[in-house]
Every structure is written in C-alpha cells, then in structure tokens.
C-alpha cells in the first residue's frame, strides 16, 4: 500500500489512536511507514493534525501541501481547514460531527454552512460518515475514531481482516471487543443518499 493520509480533528477525539492503527496496518503489510503526531498544549481542544505516510520507503514524516491522498477528518470544520493538503482528486472521509470552536461558542464567529458541499467542490470524492451516531448506537462515544478508521479502510480497499488485526495490535485487550464492533460498523457504513 502507498498512501499519504492526513488525520485532522479536535484535540481529545482520538487522532493518535487512529494513526497508530494505521501504523500497525503498515507494520503488518511490511511497508515502510512514518507517523507524525501532536502532543502537549495543542491537544487541549485545539485543531490537531496527524500525518501518516505509508510507502515502500518514506523520508519526510510529514504530508506536504497538495500531497495527501486522503484526509480523514473527525470534524467538519477541520476537514475544510486542511483541504490545501489534498492531492487533486483526493478523497475526504469526514465525520459529520460539528464541534464548535471557541470563537463560535462566544458568538464572535459563525460556524460555516454546507461544509460537505464545500468539500465536494474541492475533493475528488467525499465520504460522509455520521460516526457520532454510530458510536452512540454502540454505546461508547469514544469509539468515533475507530468507526472512522473502519470507513477509511474500506475506501482504501484494505481487507477487513487486515485492519482488524491492526486494531487488535493497537488497543488494550479489554477495549478490543467494543472497538471491533465500531470498526465493523464503520467498514460497513452506507452513506445516506
């Protein structure tokens, strides 16, 4: 597999775990892989970006502007914020959740409208996933990230068994079962037409 993936979201949404599952996927495949993460202050509810590069040989650990095959967005506004990183014709897999940033909460700014439409105007393909709803059905809101990884894996054409093995290698054993359900649901997710 060869792919540059930019994972974007809001600090606390679990982008780190998502990138580590992809790292385990590359490890399982025997591909080279580099991940670049955000720790520290920016994690506190801020806009976060994690870079995932999988290829036979990877040099720079960061995905450049115009260089992402896929943007995996855990939040709508963050998806739109990083579209400059997307390759021409690239795919955006986006969680349709909206988390209001502080300037919107205080009323200084408005949350942008029709983000999915804006994404469609900029991407080759947009896969919109209501991961929060799926996670709520599963009964664990923390599984949004794994639902999204499931949707991403299918869009990449990764066999379920491979992404499942990567999940198992990454999460703590006691959290595997609930996350496996999330992964299945994300993998099987059908967009509302």
């Amino acid at each position, binding site marked *: 597999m060869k792919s540059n993936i930019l994972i974007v979201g*809001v*600090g*606390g949404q679990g982008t780190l775990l998502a990138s*580590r599952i992809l*790292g*385990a996927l*590359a*490890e399982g495949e025997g591909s*080279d*892989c*580099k*991940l*670049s*993460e*955000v*720790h*520290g*202050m*920016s*994690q*506190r*509810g*801020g*806009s976060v970006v994690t870079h995932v590069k999988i290829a036979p040989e*990877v*040099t*720079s*650990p*960061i995905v*450049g*502007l*115009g260089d992402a095959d896929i943007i995996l967005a855990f939040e709508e*506004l*963050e998806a*739109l*914020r990083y*579209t*400059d990183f997307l390759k021409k014709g690239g795919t955006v897999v986006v969680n349709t959740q909206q*988390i*209001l*940033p*502080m*300037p*919107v*909460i*205080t*009323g*200084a*700014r*408005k*949350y*942008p409208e029709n983000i999915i439409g804006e994404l469609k105007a*900029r991407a080759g393909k947009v896969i919109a996933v209501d991961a*929060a709803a799926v996670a709520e059905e599963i009964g664990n*809101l923390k599984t949004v990230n794994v639902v999204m990884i499931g949707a991403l894996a299918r869009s990449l054409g990764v066999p379920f068994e491979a992404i499942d093995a990567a999940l198992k290698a990454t999460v703590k054993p006691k959290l595997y079962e609930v996350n496996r359900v999330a992964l299945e649901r994300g993998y099987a997710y059908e967009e509302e037409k």
Partner: protein
Amino acid sequence: MRKLMLGNEAVARGAYEAGVRVVSAYPGTPSTEVSECIAGYDEVYAEWAPNEKVALEVAVGASIAGARCMACMKHVGVNVAADPMFTAAYTGVNGGLVILAADDPGMHSSQNEQDTRFYARSAHLPLLEPADSQEAKDFTKMAFELSEKYDTPVIVRTTTRLAHSQSFVETADREDVPLRDYVKDVTKYTMMPSSAIGRHIVVEAREKRLAADVDGFDIVREEMRDDSLGVVCSGVVYQYVREALPEASVLKLGIVYPVALGKVREFAGKVKRLVVVEELEPFIEDTLKAEGIACEGKNIFSLQGEFSTAIIKEKLLGVKVETEKKDLPVRPPVMCAGCPHRGVFYILNKLKLTVSADIGCYTLGAQPPLAAVDTVVCMGASVGIAHGFEKARGREQSQKTVAVIGDSTFIHSGITGLINAVYNKSNITLIILDNSTTGMTGHQQHPATGLTLKQEPAKILDIVALCKTVGCDSVRVTDSYDLADLEKIIREETARDGVSVIVAKRPCALLDRNYPPACTVEDCRRCGMCFRLGCPAIEKQADGSAKINPALCVGCGLCAKVCRFGAIKEGRK
C-alpha cells in the same frame, strides 16, 4: 525486532540498550515520553525530579558514582539545568552521561524557540542530532560511548517533529555495562578554582581532540549526487531535504558540535553551490563562515518555525504550492470542560486584577473570553513578577495583582520566588492551582501526588505546610469549583498586608473520569453570563440562548453557579 517507535521511545530504547542505570527528568513537551518509556524497563532506575537542574545533578552524581545515566528535558529546561551542565563539562564523567534536550521549532507547546546547539558550543559539549527513530536509538547509544571515550557529558538534541514522529526501529538486547569503580579524585570532581583551572585546560584539549576526530565519524555522511547543489543539514531537516531535492548532494551531519570541518571543506570543494539548511539559528552556517567556508543559509531561510519539504522546494526551487485563502473560525486550544482552573480565571477576570501567570494548562486563561492573564515568562516566574510589580509600583498595585501557578510548576521553581517575597517584605497574593498532577504534559506525577514515575507510592509534599513554613502571612485552601468562596478569599487576601497564598484545590478533570450527569438549560434568558466561562460544552445558539453539549459536559456545575436566573441546572445523580 523491528518496531514502529516514537522518536522519544527510541531514545529511551537506545539508553536502555546502552545499559543506562539511572535516569532523572522533569516533564516538558516534547521530551516527556522519553522518561515515561524508560520507566517501563525494570533494569533502569528512573524518576521525576522537581526540576531539570536537580535532574541533571542526579545524573552527574550517578555518573561520578560509575553508572551510565541520562537527564531529559525540553529546550527551556536546559536553561534551568545550565548551571550543573557547564561545570559537568569540567568534571567530565565516570559512567557515561547523556543529556537529552528537545527543541521546539514552531513552538507547538513552548514559550520560545531557543536553539540548544549554542549551549553545546558554549559549554564545550558534543551534540548529536538524529534524523529518525532508528537514529534516535543508535545515536543515543553512541552518545554513551562518546561520553566515556572523551570523558564528557554528551547532548542528544531532538526537535518536536523527531520526538513525536514514529518510524521503524531495529531493536537489540541490552548491553551488560558494569558499574565503574568510584575513586575519589578532588582534582577532577571538586570544582574550586585550584582544580577547575586545571580542568578548563582539559576541556579545551578534549574539544580539540574531538574536533579532529569528528571527520572520521561515520554519522557524518556524504551523499554525492548532482554537483550543482550541495546541502549541509542534520536532524529531521535531512528528511525534508531528501524529499524536496532528491538530486541534490547532501552532507548529513549526525554530530552538529563540533562540526566536522574537514568533511565540510571536502564536500564544499565538490559542489558548485553550498547551502546550509537548518531550523532556528544559523548555527552550522556561522561556524562554516567563521572558518572561511562560503555558503548560503539564512539569507534564504527563516530563523522562525518548522521547515518542511514545501518550504525547501519554495526557497530553493521556486516551486510554490498554491493555497486557498479561507476565512474560517480558528480553533485554539482551550481549557477542557470541567477544568478546575476555569473558575479561578473567571473570578480574576471579574475582579479585573493584574495577573502574572505561569507555564501550564492555566496559561490558557490568557485566551478570550477569560482573558485574565497579563504576563507569562517561564517556569516559576509568576511569583517573582508579581513581587517585581509591587516593588516598582507600590502597595496600591499589589492590592490588584495576583500571581497564579500550578502545583507542579510551584514545586519546580515557584517556591524560591515565594521565599524571596516573604524575605523581602512583599504584599503579593499567590494562587496555587493545585490540580494534583502535571497537566499540560499529560499527567505526570510530582512530589505532591504521592506516586513516583514508576507509579510507586511516595511521600506527599504538603504544599500548605510548606507555604506556612517559609513564612507566608496567610495560607488558605479552597475548592476551585466554589466560585463564591474563591471570590471572597481573593478579595480578602489581596487587601491583606503581607504575603498570602491561596491553594485552589481540585484534581484535573481528565484524571478521574467518573463524571456526574451533564448540566441542562431551561428557559434561558440570553444574558450571556455562562459564555464568559469559555467552556467548550456551552454553545451559543443563533437566538443567543445557551445550549449545553451533553457529549462534552462533565457536570462540573460552574455554569449553574454563574447563571443569574437559575436557568442552568446541574445534572441529577
């Protein structure tokens, strides 16, 4: 075994494989995970020290005692540890001593963008800089060998991008490195003028020997390709250079101090144009120019921020990636829902006080809508700055000034400022935000939490008793969630003469996640008071009313307390 590892994890692995016995550190992004990973190895003693100076002193002691040892810190921590570091350069080592220093170009989580490489030159210490996780492991191992071979502490310098990127690492077994004998040697280990004069000569001789030897180091690697452009670089920048300029010849300096000048001269002679690509200061460039080696560098590249493949392509190839100008609402980091710091800053804002704050999550109290902070400089500075404000502007000023500091930061270096304030007849009020952890760096233990880095039970520093003991005139404790009491106490203590300490206690909301149910809003009168809390769970609707996001709310009830109309109800258990 081949494994994906964080740069920091790889440094820890390298130290482990090199037989390190003692590691001491203070948490600081982006260095923190080195110590956390080391703590997982049973063969290694590892600890959190109250600050970086102590951490390095512990390492110096362990080294003289004959053990391989390491002290870890972020770049600004090197300032704190600089005192023992400069003199440890004189004493040299017994067991290998490695200082891990993590710089933060781009200031992902720091208050400045200083460049550790200058410390290496200034203290005459060799400095290695790895470019990926494999090198992070290998160079750390090598640093221990160099330390013992040249009888000097060695700095391993990382940057945020290296520290927090993962790449594959081949691991090996731990080397069996026996404890060296300790032999008393006053001329080497007791630095007073008579012995230090002799050691300074040793330092210079060692540096000359090392400068001559580095040309032979295999971590200084020449990669000849096209000769029209030759790039000198090191660290993670090497990766960007390779991706941006696959045809360019590269001299990759694995050791950045001393610079392998012979290798550079040779390389310069083979290429038509020589460019130094380095983040932050022109450290390598200035070194080359001082030696008469013509090169370009900061005439092209910025002294600020992180580099990338795109920046190098733009600056050297003139290829610019088109970006779209979008006017989107920013999403700065914010205090978490339920953060115990929020109420304190809400009151400080309400009382319109001048606030000298400190380094930690509570620095976020500077952001709107709380916007309650006037100054932030460095770890522990809040106390001294408040004292300085009073000495400059008098008692009238200190009645409307407070210093604010976290528990871990207070122990790190706030306590000395407090002793100074007491001793020098200050009238400041210090609020210690005691959330029972080192929050911003990801919940590390400290001397007042009751656990060590290895999660073993420890004695608990009594912060209240400590403040009383140093002579504070008033020490009071309150609950960070009790807004009415907080306001009352802050008013009383700022009015009181003498040094006052208010300990606002409440564990970080991310520690024990056994939250009460979310708050709810009914019949909102749209007064907007709750928005002043800057809580990410309280959202302003189009009609100006408040809505509480149940997925984010942790039921702290602060908003119910500020709502004048009783429209917000705490969730029922």
